């Protein structure tokens, strides 16, 4: 981020344009950071669900429904990051 700020400053843009450039760069970070937690969470969740389905195939339907619910809740965090990315970056 520091290096990018220096690079932007060196291009000799106006203050508004520098701000836009900084926003564009930090938007990427916003989404990237927001995706870490849900990524781990969804991986763990689906892994456990597959384990449960393999142990008890007759409960697979219920496990799958619950898995989708869990994914939906976990994924929301990443999606909020994506919305922030849209808001500040584009």
């Amino acid at each position, binding site marked *: 981020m520091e290096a990018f700020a220096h*690079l*932007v400053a060196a*291009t000799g*843009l106006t203050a508004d*344009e520098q701000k*836009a*450039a900084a926003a*564009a760069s930090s938007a990427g970070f916003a989404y990237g950071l927001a995706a870490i937690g849900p990524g781990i969470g969804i991986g763990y969740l689906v892994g456990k669900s597959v384990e449960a389905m393999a142990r008890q195939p007759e409960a697979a339907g219920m496990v799958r429904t619950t898995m989708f619910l869990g994914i939906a809740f976990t994924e929301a965090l990443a999606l909020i990051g994506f*919305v922030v990315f*849209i*808001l500040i970056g*584009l």
Partner: protein
Amino acid sequence: MLAAVVHLEGTSVTVHLTPMEGEGSEELAGVTDPKEPGPIIPELKELAWGAGSFIVFALLMRFFLYPRLKKGMDARYHGIRSAHESADAERAAARAEVAEYEAQLAAIKAEAARKVDDARATLEAERAAAMADVNAEVSAQRSAAMAEAEAAKAAVRDQIAAAVGDVAGRAGELATGRRPSDDVVTRVVQEVMAR
């Protein structure tokens, strides 16, 4: 929105960031005005049209489309279920008929077996009787033949004894000049033959 312009001159690279206003996007889609509200602000016209069409659709579904479809589905399921039940009943009836037929078949088979056994027993008895008759006749004939043979043998023996007695008396007469009495000769011959 920024555009990065990269200059490559020999070994040095310079980057220029230049603000870009709408250019290069016109060819993509018919955009009205790039300076309009941000991408996550809902637009009233879309909201109104979306809401209207969904509400109409949901009401139609609730009061007309779904009940009609569901009625057909229920009717068919009911039909299928009753068809299943009648098929089950028919199957049971057919099974009962089969059982009845099998019972009749078994009875007839038993009857047939009994008749065959009776006939066989009668046959056995008749055969035994015939055998007994034949055997009795055979033994009677055999004993008659035996008696005949005994009689013939005794006659032959008497003839031999008479002849031997005659020869022996003759031989004694020649040797002693006196004829032994017939009684003595006969007794002697019979003693010898009996030995």
